[in-house]
């Protein structure tokens, strides 16, 4: 018999017995729980079977999503930039074919260009339901589609289908700005309701991406009754999809195309800004790509070609690439100097170089060179801008200090995004003492102020920023709100800016005069690109160095730009405005590694302004309602 155990917590059995007893109870317990499950199943599947079977039949009402048409994109005069084009496709319904293999072979025979991979396609078809149409091929030419239609009796189970795809009539010239659409990626699936559609696309960059939500519209859906295997029997209810909103850009597509043509063969960007409204009329980047390729599906080879090209055709260089502004910064430095009380009439002497003490160097001095080796002699502000004298600007930059220069540059829109809509825009850098401390952890050096005074060193700007800054100089200091989308509410405004000025008008007048002289007076840096006629162009060249020229090299003679590898050549820049008497447009041109601004960029500005003066002095605006 069991000993009486004092252990009051436990049952009065020895350990083995206890476990066996507990395990037995556990087994009974588990068995009974499973018996409950079994009876629950019996209840559901046997007793309630009729009930649930009819519920299961009722269940056969399902929803299908309806894809809306994507909104169009127009330019300021209502020309189409992005539309949708009928896409001729062929689809197959497996159960309607007699023999799927034969059907596909016949298809290949009728459309030999399609080069359909039969085994691959069969594999794809077999994965889907046999009554669902599967797309065989899209993007057929009209002749091929006609061919298909006339032979359709030979192709049982294969149907011609008309779908839609995104079409960009302006192709390359507007590619960077407008962007493109392509298949929805995995990471978008959670935010984009269109991911549930078969083969839906979304905007990947540019306007197409930024405005994807309004362009894509609202999904519709239809309730349909389906039979036991899912075949559609009849439609019960339909909520139509809503077409995406149309968008109008401030771009003038003719001007945009002209600018794009100017950049043919070079790598660079052009921005044209209306100085009274802040609207951008052109935003061009080169080289470019055909966005239509993405709508039809890009093959891997083409994609890797585009991504590995050293001229970076996929990057919008007008907003996503930053460059040192070079001498195009001088008008802003001049404004900073005038605001600091420097007399523009004071002459400073240029002997071709400027020296500052630098104890870290053996010689004890660091030499800053003017672009003109022999120097400009005595120059005042007007002359200094006209001939782009570096030594003059070294001296005034040193006097007013980097923080003043940075403050003025920021006031005119450098160092921050021009548009607040592009995911791909880069804001560049306007360096000052705090910036350097925060980003490089070092204190500012005097020499760096000198470099900044001529737009070198840490300075980084984009083409869109430079044309905005110039626009605000030549419009008399009126603060602009840069725009690229036409607001349909205040569509016909001819002027659009803050009433407050961002700089003293008399200072700006001095700078404007200098910019005029730089282009229209003999000896000016862009004199060769001047326009003769009623309307004139003013402007400033810039050449920004990519490499540092060593002392030794300077003594041995500087290597000519054209003898250097492309990546090491200078960037050529030009900022210009016109007409000089009553400015309407400002532009900026950056030619990557194109050599000097006066030879690479200024001549393009001449072409563009000649075109503008002739054709674009009064752009015909159209509202979307008129389109």
């Amino acid at each position, binding site marked *: 018999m069991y000993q009486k155990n*004092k*252990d*009051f*917590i*436990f*049952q009065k059995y020895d*350990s083995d017995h*206890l*476990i*066996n007893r*507990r*395990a037995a109870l*556990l*087994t009974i317990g*588990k*068995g009974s*729980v*499973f018996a*409950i*499950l*079994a009876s*629950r*199943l*019996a209840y*559901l*599947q*046997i007793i*309630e*079977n009729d*009930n*649930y*079977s009819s*519920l*299961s039949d009722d*269940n*056969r009402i*399902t929803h299908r999503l309806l894809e809306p048409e994507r909104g169009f994109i127009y330019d300021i005069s209502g020309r189409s930039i992005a539309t949708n084009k009928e896409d001729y496709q062929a689809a197959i319904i497996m159960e309607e074919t007699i023999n799927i293999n034969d059907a596909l072979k016949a298809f290949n025979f009728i459309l030999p260009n399609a080069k359909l991979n039969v085994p691959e396609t069969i594999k794809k078809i*077999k*994965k889907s*339901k046999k009554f669902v149409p599967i797309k065989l091929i899209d993007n057929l030419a009209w002749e091929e589609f006609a061919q298909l239609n006339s032979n359709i009796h030979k192709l049982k189970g294969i149907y011609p289908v008309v779908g839609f795809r995104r079409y960009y009539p302006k192709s390359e010239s507007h590619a960077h700005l407008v962007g493109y659409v392509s298949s929805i990626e995995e990471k978008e699936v959670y935010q984009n309701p269109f991911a549930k559609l078969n083969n839906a696309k979304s905007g990947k960059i540019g306007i197409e991406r930024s405005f994807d939500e309004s362009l894509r519209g609202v999904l519709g859906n239809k309730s349909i009754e*389906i039979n*036991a*295997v*899912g075949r559609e029997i009849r439609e019960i209810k339909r909520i139509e999809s809503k077409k995406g909103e149309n968008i109008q850009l401030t771009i003038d597509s003719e001007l945009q195309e002209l600018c794009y043509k100017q950049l043919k063969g070079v790598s660079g960007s052009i921005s044209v800004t209306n100085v009274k409204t802040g609207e951008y009329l052109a935003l061009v980047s080169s080289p470019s790509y055909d966005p239509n390729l993405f709508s039809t599906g890009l093959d891997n080879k083409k994609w890797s070609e585009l991504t590995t090209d050293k001229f970076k055709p996929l990057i919008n260089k007008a907003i996503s690439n930053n460059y040192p502004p070079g001498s195009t910064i001088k008008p802003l430095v001049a404004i900073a100097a005038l605001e600091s009380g420097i007399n523009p009439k004071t002459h400073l002497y240029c002997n071709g170089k400027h020296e500052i003490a630098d104890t870290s160097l053996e010689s004890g001095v660091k030499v800053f060179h003017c672009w003109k080796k022999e120097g400009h002699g005595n120059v005042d502000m007007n002359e200094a801008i006209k001939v782009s004298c570096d030594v003059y600007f070294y001296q005034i930059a040193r006097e007013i200090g980097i923080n003043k220069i940075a403050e003025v540059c920021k006031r005119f829109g450098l160092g921050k995004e021009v548009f607040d809509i592009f995911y791909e825009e880069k804001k560049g850098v306007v360096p000052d003492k705090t910036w350097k401390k925060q980003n490089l952890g070092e204190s500012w050096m005097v020499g760096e102020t000198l470099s900044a005074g001529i737009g070198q060193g840490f300075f980084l700007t984009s083409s869109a920023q430079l044309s905005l800054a110039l626009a605000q100089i030549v419009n008399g200091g009126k603060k602009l709100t840069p725009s690229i989308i036409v607001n349909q509410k205040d569509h016909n405004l001819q002027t659009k800016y803050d009433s407050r000025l961002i700089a003293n008008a008399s200072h700006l007048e001095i700078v404007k005069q200098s910019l005029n002289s730089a282009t229209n007076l003999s000896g000016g840096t862009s004199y060769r690109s001047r326009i003769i006629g009623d309307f004139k162009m003013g402007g400033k060249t810039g050449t920004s160095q990519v490499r540092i020229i060593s002392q030794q090299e300077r003594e041995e003679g500087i290597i000519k730009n054209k003898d250097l590898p492309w990546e090491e050549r200078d960037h050529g820049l030009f900022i210009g405005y016109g007409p000089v008497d009553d400015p309407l447009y400002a532009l900026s041109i950056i030619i990557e590694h194109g050599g000097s601004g006066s030879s690479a960029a200024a001549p393009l500005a001449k072409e563009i302004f000649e075109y503008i003066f002739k054709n674009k002095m009064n752009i015909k605006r159209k509202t979307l309602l008129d389109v």
Partner: protein
Amino acid sequence: MYNFQNRGSEFNILTRIRSINFYFLFIVTIIFLFGVLSLYSVSNGDFNSWPIKHIQRFLIGLIVFFTICSIDIKFFFIFAYPIFLLSLIFLIIVHFVGTEIYGATRWIKIAGISLQPSEFIKFTLVLALAKYFHSYNEVTNNFIQFIKKFILPLVIILVPVFIVAAQPDLGTAVVIFIGGVSIFWIVGLNYKYFISSGLIIILSIPLLWQYLKDYQKERVFTFFNPERDPLGNGYHIMQSKIALGSGGILGKGYQEGTQSHLNFLPEMHTDFIFTVFGEEFGFLGALLLIFLYLGLIFLSIKMGLQSSSNFGKYLSLGVSTVFFIYVFVNIAMVTGLLPVVGVPLPLVSFGGSSMLAVMMGFGLLMNCYIHQKTILPKGNIF
């Protein structure tokens, strides 16, 4: 440290593998094959999506199983606490480095594989408790001694339960809790403690209610009244019941389940796989699967009781109970007996961590069976 009375250390790996109970492994494989069959149906006949991965995971699981079987039981006895602590550490770091899916942080990536530490802790917890109760030999004559004996294991249970509940994964937390408490039952804690703490839990439900997340509350509401929101939360339960109910006695036929194939069912390949099976194979098919599970559970209890050490008995019965809870909660959930809490059907549901954890548990169980004659020392709880 230990003075083992070795009867079994003459075992080498081969003899260990040879002493595996192959009836057990056979039932496991049959149940797994039902899983492959259902996944093939759910993926519309695409073998390369879920079925192939399921098979791969089972094979990995088998490797784990055999590896555990070929190790001496003394290893698991000695390292029971470190193993438990390790899995607890993983459970904790999931909070910091885990991946969030559907609002819950449960997954952790190790060497490119996403694992769910909460699946493993169910078994390592049982391992730690088995060692503790095996080793704790002092008599408990009064309440103080009772508290001394049971306070530590209760803490060991509650720590992972609270961590998992905070992920938030209430379903798994409940499984861990019941799995741990089942050891208390096996070691022989008096009935009255189970009854009284059961009462306390029921009475404290209103208090705990406020700590539930909104979606968890919603699930409980809809559990009691699924028709309340047939297109929202009640949808899952309703659709699952319709699928099962319309399956009838004989089912609609393999790959012919209309409910599952028309996408009326959610999570068909994981939590609701039993519904797919029940719709296509009917009551008889579902019953067969339930019997297979029951057979496996009974066999594991029988195997466990053959252990000469308490450690082996506790561990085997614990593993078998955890497995039982898995199966019960899942089937009860899809038949509308319990709220939808997201517990997979072991060996059948698609899910790597659950497969691996279950095979690990079975490995421990089989290990006890192989070493049933090994005597393990008592007395030193650490």
